[in-house]
């Protein structure tokens, strides 16, 4: 007998003995269930959460603050920072519970979760949410929290330069609870859109179309800025905006690849798709602008990148590299037209193009997800052009429509309520002199 053969036989005997021992052991005492925790998944998800948080602070804060006039730069950054803090606490108190737990009543479960996890009382050290079975619930809760933070914070872009800080904080709070949480539950938390088969990997509708719609409603309700169309409102420091956009880009890997909730093949593909789409979108916006306005602006190329990030968001875990490229190329051009021309034609003051980039980009991305989702990439999805599943387009459309309508109506109600009680817009004098000094008592010097 060769040594090799002896080893094989030896291994076989050992395995047999081991199996006997285990089965014998079961007769004496129940073996503890294997720990479902995967350290690779957990490490990646904690990292992803931090990356997504970085997208808001300071990513979004700088992106927006760099685009406003000097007199409003601190107030604009304060909106991102303040939103981060209030939403964290509200998410802990009740947001997570109503979004990501199951409601005992199956009819209610379609629309909202439960209060089971109020104050995260039930979140123990070893709790695990079935939606993310290989990581601690504490991590999943934190990960989802960072999404809940950035979604309302995005709305600040539409209402820049003219909203009261107090009204803004109230708006963030009520919008989180009455718009974001229900919609997150509908798509991701076991609600009706998810069960219908809507494909939204990381939040094209839940985050971007949602925030964009709210931004559109909000900017229409607040009205145009004083001097809009006549006064020079050039960005104070586009370098801040570039830094912010770059932080958004890098952080977005937590957003998209993190939505795999695991550290594996899908996360990897989502990351690749994200990078490809973003770069493609930046180029297509850049070239469109180069052609039409004769010069490729820095603001344009970073806006194109963000448009790409938004559009690939719902598709990231479902498409392959080619699908990502097409989505990116489309997003750059479409959002360029939405933010630059449609806005001008229709005349609304969406100050930092929250609707033009996030709203339009999110809707576009959601529909293109229906086109390019590939079953070979993610068994949860079957796309129209890839797998011949035309019906997915209708499901995607329902998702888009539901979010648009619900968000639109609820945002209107919430803002109306706040306006009737404390008022949402600053006074004319405050707006002209500037928000930094009037709302926060601070200024940027030099």
């Amino acid at each position, binding site marked *: 007998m060769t040594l090799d053969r002896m080893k094989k036989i030896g291994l076989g005997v050992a395995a047999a003995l081991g199996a006997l021992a285990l089965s014998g052991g079961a007769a004496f005492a129940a073996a503890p269930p294997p720990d479902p925790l995967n350290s690779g998944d957990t490490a990646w998800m904690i990292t992803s959460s931090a990356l997504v948080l970085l997208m808001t602070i300071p990513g979004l804060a700088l992106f927006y603050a760099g685009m406003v006039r000097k007199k409003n730069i601190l107030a604009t950054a304060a909106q991102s920072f303040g939103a981060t803090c209030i939403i964290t606490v509200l998410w802990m108190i009740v947001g997570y519970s109503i979004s990501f737990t199951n409601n005992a009543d199956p009819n209610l479960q379609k629309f909202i979760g439960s209060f089971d996890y109020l104050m995260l009382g039930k979140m123990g050290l070893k709790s695990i949410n079935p939606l993310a079975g290989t990581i601690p619930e504490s991590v999943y809760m934190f990960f989802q929290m960072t999404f809940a933070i950035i979604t309302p914070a995005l709305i600040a872009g539409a209402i820049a330069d003219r909203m009261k800080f107090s009204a803004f904080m109230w708006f963030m709070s009520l919008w989180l609870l009455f718009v974001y949480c229900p919609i997150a539950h509908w798509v991701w938390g076991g609600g009706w859109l998810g069960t219908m088969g809507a494909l939204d990997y990381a939040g094209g509708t839940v985050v971007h179309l949602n925030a964009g719609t709210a931004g559109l409603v909000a900017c229409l309700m607040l009205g145009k800025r004083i001097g809009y169309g006549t006064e*020079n*409102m050039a960005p104070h420091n586009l370098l801040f905006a570039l830094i912010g956009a770059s932080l958004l880009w890098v952080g977005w890997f937590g957003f998209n690849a993190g939505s795999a909730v695991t550290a594996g093949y899908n996360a990897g593909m989502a990351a690749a798709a994200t990078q490809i789409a973003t770069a493609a979108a930046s180029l297509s916006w850049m070239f469109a602008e180069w052609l039409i306005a004769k*010069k490729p*602006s820095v603001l344009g190329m970073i*806006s194109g990148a963000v448009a790409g990030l938004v559009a690939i968001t719902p598709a990231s875990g479902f498409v392959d590299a080619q699908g990502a490229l097409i989505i990116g190329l489309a997003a750059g051009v479409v959002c360029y037209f939405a933010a*630059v021309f449609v806005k*001008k034609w229709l005349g609304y003051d969406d100050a930092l193009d929250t609707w033009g980039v996030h709203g339009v980009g999110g809707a576009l991305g959601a529909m293109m997800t229906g086109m390019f989702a590939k079953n070979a990439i993610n068994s949860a999805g079957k796309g129209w052009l890839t797998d011949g599943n035309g019906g997915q387009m209708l499901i995607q459309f329902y998702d888009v429509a539901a979010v648009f309508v619900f968000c639109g109506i609820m945002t209107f109600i919430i803002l109306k309520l706040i306006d009737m009680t404390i008022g949402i817009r600053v006074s004319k004098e405050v707006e002209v002199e500037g928000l930094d000094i009037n709302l926060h008592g601070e200024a940027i010097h030099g």
Partner: protein
Amino acid sequence: MKLITAIIKPFKLDEVREALSALGVQGMTVTEVKGYGRQKGHKEIYRGAEYAVNFLPKVKIEVGVKAEIADAVIEAITTAAKTGQIGDGKIFVSQIDKVVRIRTGETDGDAL
């Protein structure tokens, strides 16, 4: 004594400073200003929002000199600051009533 105020293109500042130094002019005050004359501004576009920027950045130099060298100073500034393109700037000459050196109390000619 004359106060010579020159509005020049910003990138010409060092050249002008060197030219004045060569003439023995010991000091000057420099301010960053905005202005326009025959040189028109430019257009900036930010995501479709177009702004006409009429004011251009310039630099203002102020030197106090003895009347005898005023012409030489004007000549030096003009030569150093000139590019031949619209927007080179202007020089204004005004009379100074009195000059005082703060540290020593010297006045007029001794203070320049």
